[in-house]
């Protein structure tokens, strides 16, 4: 009986709510959403086909990610050289010593067939014959293998190059040194250290200025000051304005001001951190328990003593947590601040990408990923300990 009484009102009177597909509002909303997305699709020029058509362009980069330029072996080479001049001028004899390389002719024109003969090289080794033009640019003419007496012979066509004074070089690989860090790795490491310290200095600058400012931006503390409302308003407005300008924009401004390099990056991160940390700190101060402030004030303590003994002990853990969090963000951010000339690893990464040096770019990317992930993890552990 009771059950029936509960279920009765539904059956009896009240109009049943319309089902969703019976409401014209639903159709209007769907129509508006479709319009918005159709326009969005067009205006952002989404062409999914490009993903497929352009795949060959990015393939070398994907491949490079699997083989970043991290280690190298020092190669020990045997080298023989000979000159070849375009035009009538006869070149001087090549520097002597070591293996000898002789050419069937030493002057000529583009397209001439020339035979290179070498002797005195290490026997049964693979080697490469290079053409080096007047400004030292090399191109490969062919490869060869020396015979049991250390001789070889290779015919080539004189290539089309600028300048007249050219050199032919034969190089035979006779051994490899131990593995060692590659030049790229050293450069990337150097820049990564710069990046981490850029973040450190930027964060420090933020903390140094944000801590005192945050007291002025806390409503509960400024309320008792003369003109406290004005101080509070000005501080908070400054925080909000500075926060709304991205650090990348600040970096561009500071590179104009103090020149390219990490100092501009430090200033950009620092100013942005002042605003962000200041706001977080202020809110932490506003959320503290007012009781101890009242108690310490009632003992006749001065404002400084009240802040030191009633405010500071309450905010220290939150301040530390916010600072570590900011340092986290700054490390990540300092990896891209180099794109606009603010120093750090972003600078070399951009260079590698622009020069299509994919393996070097991959090295930089892996370095960023590893260091940022490691710092992320450490700061998470530290933050957990503190709070």
């Amino acid at each position, binding site marked *: 009986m009771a059950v029936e009484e509960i279920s009765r009102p539904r059956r009896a009177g009240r109009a049943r709510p319309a089902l969703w597909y019976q409401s014209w509002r639903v159709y209007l909303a769907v129509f508006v959403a479709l319009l918005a997305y159709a326009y969005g699709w067009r205006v952002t020029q989404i062409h999914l086909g490009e993903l497929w058509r352009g795949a060959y362009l990015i393939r070398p980069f994907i491949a490079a990610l699997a083989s970043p330029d991290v280690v190298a072996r020092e190669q020990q080479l045997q080298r023989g050289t000979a000159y070849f001049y375009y035009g009538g001028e006869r070149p001087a004899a090549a520097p002597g010593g070591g293996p000898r390389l002789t050419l069937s002719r030493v002057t000529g024109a583009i397209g001439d067939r020339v035979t290179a003969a070498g002797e005195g090289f290490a026997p049964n080794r693979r080697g490469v014959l290079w053409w080096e033009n007047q400004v030292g640019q090399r191109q490969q003419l062919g490869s060869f293998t020396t015979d049991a007496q250390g001789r070889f012979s290779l015919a080539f066509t004189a290539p089309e190059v600028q300048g007249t004074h050219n050199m032919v070089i034969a190089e035979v690989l006779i051994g490899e040194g131990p593995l060692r860090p590659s030049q790229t790795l050293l450069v990337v490491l150097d820049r990564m250290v710069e990046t981490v310290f850029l973040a450190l200095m930027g964060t420090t600058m933020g903390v140094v200025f944000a801590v005192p400012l945050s007291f002025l931006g806390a409503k509960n503390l400024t309320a008792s000051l003369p003109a406290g409302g004005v101080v509070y308003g000005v501080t908070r407005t400054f925080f909000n304005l500075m926060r709304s300008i991205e650090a990348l924009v600040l970096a561009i401004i500071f590179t104009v001001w103090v020149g390219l390099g990490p100092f501009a990056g430090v200033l950009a991160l620092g100013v942005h951190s002042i605003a962000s940390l200041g706001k977080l700190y202020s809110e932490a101060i506003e959320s503290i328990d007012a009781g101890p402030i*009242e108690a310490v004030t009632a*003992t*006749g303590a001065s404002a400084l*003593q009240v802040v*030191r003994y009633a405010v500071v002990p*309450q905010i220290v853990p939150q301040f530390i947590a916010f600072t570590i969090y900011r340092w986290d963000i700054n490390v990540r951010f300092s990896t891209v601040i180099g794109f606009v000339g603010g120093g750090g690893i972003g600078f070399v990464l951009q260079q590698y990408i622009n020069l299509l040096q994919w393996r070097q770019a991959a090295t930089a990317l892996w370095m960023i990923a590893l260091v940022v992930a490691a710092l992320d993890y450490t700061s998470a552990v530290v933050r957990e300990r503190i709070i």
Partner: protein
Amino acid sequence: MYGGGTRALSDVSFEVARGEFLIIIGLSGSGKSTLLRCINRLIEPTSGRVVVAGHDVTAASPRQLREIRRKIGMIFQQFNLVRRASVLTNVLTGRLGYLPPAWALANYFPAALVDRAMANLERVGIPEKAFVRGDALSGGQQQRVGIARALMQEPELILADEPVASLDPATSHSVLRYVEELNKRDGITVLCCLHFLSLARRYGTRILALKAGQIVFDGHPNDINDARFAEIYGEDAIEVEIR
């Protein structure tokens, strides 16, 4: 006396003799806490005059006000300890009014003061808790730290804002006995807000009743009979006794 749209207190005028244990009772919102806070100007009265030991509190400059506050200890319903600081530091903060502000930056207290803080902790029976964090103590212990903190001021007057409202009956008595001892032995005047009439009768030498910001009773504890009680707390109230 107190502005901002609502008048918390009006036409409240009374004198307290040195050495009295004055208990202020009244419903929640009747103005008890406001009255206490007007005495050391934690709340600025909009009009009227407060005079403590010959000093006009309401007319005092910030510096004079701090000097007057040094002589007025205060204990709170929520104890108001700094939770993350040690008990000893909490007790020492009671003495801040006498110390140069710059010492605060180095967190420096003279050794003699530390000894006195320890002595005061011993007096309230918890010397072994000196180096424990404030929030590690029970409610009753925290309130005793609050009393030790007020003692550091060597006060002439103690304002107690519902000191036992957050405590159980047994602890309430033990805390109030410490306050009573300060009143009887050290001759410190006490102004104390209480909820329970039974506690008021047991500890007070005089009772002041507030209703809607006005004094409705001022007299000896034993003079509050049922009619008076109904007048203070409303017709429907029933007296709850705490032993």
